[in-house]
């Protein structure tokens, strides 16, 4: 027997589990447990058929580090570094494109803004394979764009802009641009313009005005955008698979290969663990930054 307030809290908790329980249980059963199983597999030994068998070992991790039957190779490090680099550059590209776009939208009349935002987002509603395939059509060696590049001497004749790192970068930036636009827009729409007016007398140049008045206010949106773009770009599978080649391989393809073409589940699971570690680091760092800046998360759970 506690107080009535405690009783009410208990009955609320009970209703919480009745309503939210089934969905939460579903996610635990079909995602939390499976991902746990997968990470566990990293500590098993690989069988001849690629499936995990006992004994427990750390072999898969030495494989990840580059040690194989042929001695040490830096290939995995190259793939990891390339994935980080591509994700970082793609995120920067989306930031550079999203800022002008978002401020273009918020400086339009209020009635036009939702439509303009919608037009920036609609392409993201089409299937990722179709979107990426569209860039294959645009960048392949026979497409006009590649032709122009050949004539200008940017790329050697008879080669296209794809497959390769450049095409992957374009594909990633294109795919995830809306993920930067939306949180930035949410921040820019709430912008307190009186601060900008107040700062007008204080700061000499437009750039300083921007970085001292506008930029800090959009920072929470920017940080959310970086998480929303950087993390999926880092782990992307479709874009490097279709637009990259062997020389543009990213971590996603390397992992997927261990479960499809040349099965080696423990090795694949160990690579996945690495991917998750980097994902979590990114997530934690940016969440901390957001919290420290007191970023409002709006109607987030």
């Amino acid at each position, binding site marked *: 027997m506690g*107080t*009535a*307030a*405690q*009783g*009410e*809290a208990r009955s609320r908790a009970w209703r919480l589990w009745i309503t939210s329980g089934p969905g939460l249980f579903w996610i635990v059963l079909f995602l939390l447990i499976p991902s746990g199983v997968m990470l566990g597999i990293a500590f098993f030994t690989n069988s001849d058929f690629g499936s995990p068998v006992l004994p427990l070992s750390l072999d898969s991790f030495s494989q990840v580090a580059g040690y194989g039957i042929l001695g040490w190779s830096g290939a995995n490090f190259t793939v990891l570094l390339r994935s980080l680099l591509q994700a970082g550059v793609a995120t920067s590209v989306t930031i550079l494109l999203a800022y002008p776009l978002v401020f273009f939208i918020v400086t339009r009349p209020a009635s036009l803004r939702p439509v303009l935002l919608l037009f920036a987002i609609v392409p993201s509603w089409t299937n990722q394979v179709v979107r990426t395939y569209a860039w294959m059509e645009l960048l392949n060696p026979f497409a006009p764009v590649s032709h122009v590049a050949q004539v200008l001497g940017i790329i050697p004749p008879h080669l296209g802009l794809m497959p390769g790192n450049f095409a992957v970068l374009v594909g990633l930036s294109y795919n995830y641009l809306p993920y930067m636009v939306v949180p930035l827009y949410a921040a820019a729409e709430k912008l307190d313009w009186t601060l900008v007016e107040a700062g007008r007398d204080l700061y000499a140049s437009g750039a300083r005005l921007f970085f001292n008045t506008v930029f800090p206010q959009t920072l929470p949106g920017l940080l959310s955008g970086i998480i929303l773009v950087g993390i999926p770009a880092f782990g992307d599978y479709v874009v490097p698979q279709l637009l990259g080649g062997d020389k543009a391989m990213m971590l996603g393809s390397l992992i997927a290969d261990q479960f499809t073409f040349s099965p080696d589940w423990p090795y694949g699971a160990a690579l996945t663990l690495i991917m998750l570690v980097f994902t979590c680091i990114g997530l934690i760092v940016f969440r901390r930054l957001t919290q420290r800046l007191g970023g409002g998360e709006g109607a987030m759970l």
Partner: protein
Amino acid sequence: MMPGAVMMPAGPEKVTAARGAISLSHITRIFAGSIPAVDHIDLEIQAGEFFTLLGPSGCGKTTLLRMIAGFETPDEGRIVISGREMQDVPAHQRAVNTVFQSYALFPHLNVEQNIGFGLRMRGVRKPERKKRVDAMMELLQIGPFAARNAGQLSGGQRQRVALARALVNEPEVVLLDEPLSALDAKLRAELQIELLRMQKRLGMTFIFVTHDQHEALVMSDRIGVMSNGRLQQVGPVLDVYEKPRNVFVAEFLGLSNIWAIEPLGGGMAAAPIGVLKIAAVIGVARMAMIRPEKIWIYNDTHAPQGRENVFPGTVREAIYMGASTQYRIELGGGGFILALDTNNQAAERSWRPGEAVAVELKPENIMLVEA
């Protein structure tokens, strides 16, 4: 008990209690681990009474109201409405309706549907429902915006709709949680009168929660002043104002001059401003209080001779407030006193800061209060 059935007439077991009478005994409510929000409240409210719970925010008045409505359960004590014990009666079965501070109008329904919601939930058929909703809308002059959505109404209109939505169910008790606090002063005054008229006309019991002492004075038959989860004083408005029981009530309700006193015998007591003659029996009382409007001010040359409690002083501050002027007067013996003088023709004159005056505190106007 049939689900959804509402006890409109009092249960057969208690025919003695009038419909709409409320009896609270020992009501206590504790929020997780902290001090009680409502602490052993005993209160009887008569049927058809306009009762106001007055107190500063956080004093527990809203929690008490929510327990009467059935949104929260008391840890201790009994709530009896119309003679019926409410212990196991959930909110939706109580013949009690609430007007919320935020109005809480349903955003997906128009005004008419909002008002008819309670009748609909109780299974009142459409023709009957329409008749009652229409009658209520006419009574409150809501008709012109019956088809509008809640979002399209002004503050005053929302307030009317929220009131209509409660009244149309003909509840035994209507609970009002600071329903006028979001309105501007003029509209507020209008609606105070309208609310009062409506209550007298329909004869329902109203329990009105407010932190505004002026509102409480204007509207109530009786008020209960609350602080720290306890009822400090309950009584008719006049009694509570004129004879506050303690310092909290005196200070919360209106302006006051309060002094610690030392009894000297013979109806005399020593106060910081000098020796006071007090008509009431002093007994063990150690605090005395006088309302500013009960203080007479004279030109120093016209000061009454040979009377008790006349002190010379100097006006230090005069605040003109239209119908009256409020003076802060520094007394000769040290200390300040607050006095209020009406600006009618009978008033001798008004005074400016720096003028020498005399004040008289009539012994029968000095009240003894608890600390």
